[in-house]
């Protein structure tokens, strides 16, 4: 069985980089699972202030600053993409049906 773990942080909290996580003893057990192969992939994400939300309504691609805010939306899936810049990421996000089916796609940079 495959699962996705969704990690949530309180807004406005202190931001730790991936390198800081690696040095943080509280993360030791988690990284142990990564090494054991039970955690098969994942990414540390840049904070919400670096997010862009894409919605397509009609022919228009609407962008908003920040994470998805509609309370009636729920997280339905994730994708990892590798593109040149935010404009390309937005174009890709806008092509996914979720962006136009009354939902939205949040584009969040991976913190590398």
């Amino acid at each position, binding site marked *: 069985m495959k699962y996705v773990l969704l990690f949530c942080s309180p807004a406005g909290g202190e931001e730790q980089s991936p390198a800081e996580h690696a040095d943080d003893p509280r993360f030791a057990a988690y990284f142990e699972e990564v090494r054991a192969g039970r955690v098969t992939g994942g990414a540390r994400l*840049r904070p919400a*202030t*670096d*997010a*862009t939300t894409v919605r397509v309504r009609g022919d228009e*691609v609407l*962008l908003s*600053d*920040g994470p998805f805010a509609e309370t009636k939306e729920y997280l339905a899936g994730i994708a990892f993409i590798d593109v*040149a*810049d*935010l*404009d390309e*990421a*937005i174009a890709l996000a806008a092509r996914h049906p979720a962006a136009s089916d009354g939902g939205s796609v949040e*584009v969040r*940079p991976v*913190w590398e």
Partner: protein
Amino acid sequence: MPDVEEAVAAAFREEWGQVVATLIRVTGDWDLAEECAQDAFAQALDRWRRDGIPRRPGAWLTTTARNRALDVLRREAVGAAKLREVAVLGRDEGPYDPEYDGEDSGVEDDRLRLVFTCCHPALPIEARVALTLRTLAGLTTPEIARAFLVPEATMAQRLVRAKKKIRNAGIPYRVPPAHLLPERTTGVLGVVYLLFNEGYAASSGAELVRTNLCAEAIRLARVLARLMPDEPEVLGLLALLLLHDARRGTRVDAAGELVTLEDQDRTAWDRAEADEGAALLETALRRGRPGPYQIQAAIAACHTTATTAEETDWADIAGLYGELERFVPSAVVRLNRAVAVGMAQHPDAGLELVAELERSGELADYHLLSATRADLLRRSGRTAEAAVAYERALELVENAAERRFLERRLAECRSA
């Protein structure tokens, strides 16, 4: 030697955006770019006193700032690859040559890159405005904070966040490709227009500093018009701003009270500014690609060309609002059209359109919907009904000068 100070001040207004824009391109570091630009202007004060004012201040400043950036990067022991990149990228403008008088090829593009990046739709709108004023227009953070009536720390934070998002989210530093260009250009023009309106709406002494925003917006629109001479909407925006600005001084009387267009002293309108706006509009319209800014400028020109309020061609204005509605199908445009129709035909014709809007419920909380109804009723001689509508408008109005104006009108209706 005061003329050196003047020359540096003039160069600052003319060249700041260009120097920063080029430095961002060659270093990829917004903070470093600003820092080095600042440093170059500081050096100019000393060096120009000693060596004379260079023939091409912009090239001198860019070269000086670039050299400074190289120094900083070297000191910070940035990798050799990055240093080579800065040195090579910088070379396309050639070394500083006091006699060189050619075109700034590429340099102007840098400013355009900067505009489009600052106005990227993934940034919050307040950040777009602040970033444009800081990096392109060269306003300081305290100046921008004062203009937007927020604490300096808040504005500083806003700028830091925006620059961080540009870096972290990968907002590209470039002029958008053709398929994105129309939409992104509209976004850029929107930022300049918003900037102007912030200044234009300011009417009291406490807000006087904000009127500088009008001048900054016009200056930015001029830069855009130079950079995008083939875009009629860019010219249309500049025309619109000039036509509005020509009337700015007469919108408020000595006591700080609002003066309606009808009662403004038309002889005090800035004729030269209005004429420039009208001429630009004509140039734009000749391209045969009308758009919302050109149409709004045409409406503004209907007002500035009427020597008296009675001479205003309201039928023409009503037609233009109808045209504008095709581009901007908004309730506010329909409300403006209602005013024009009311003035062109009979107040009752306008009231009918206002009633339609009221039924749609779209502008239920907008004080100008009630204020427009009130004004049309007043013109129709139905003062008792007008008073009720003014009362409703007063419940919704926020701006103090507008409030006092509505109170005066209400008093007139009650005593009629």
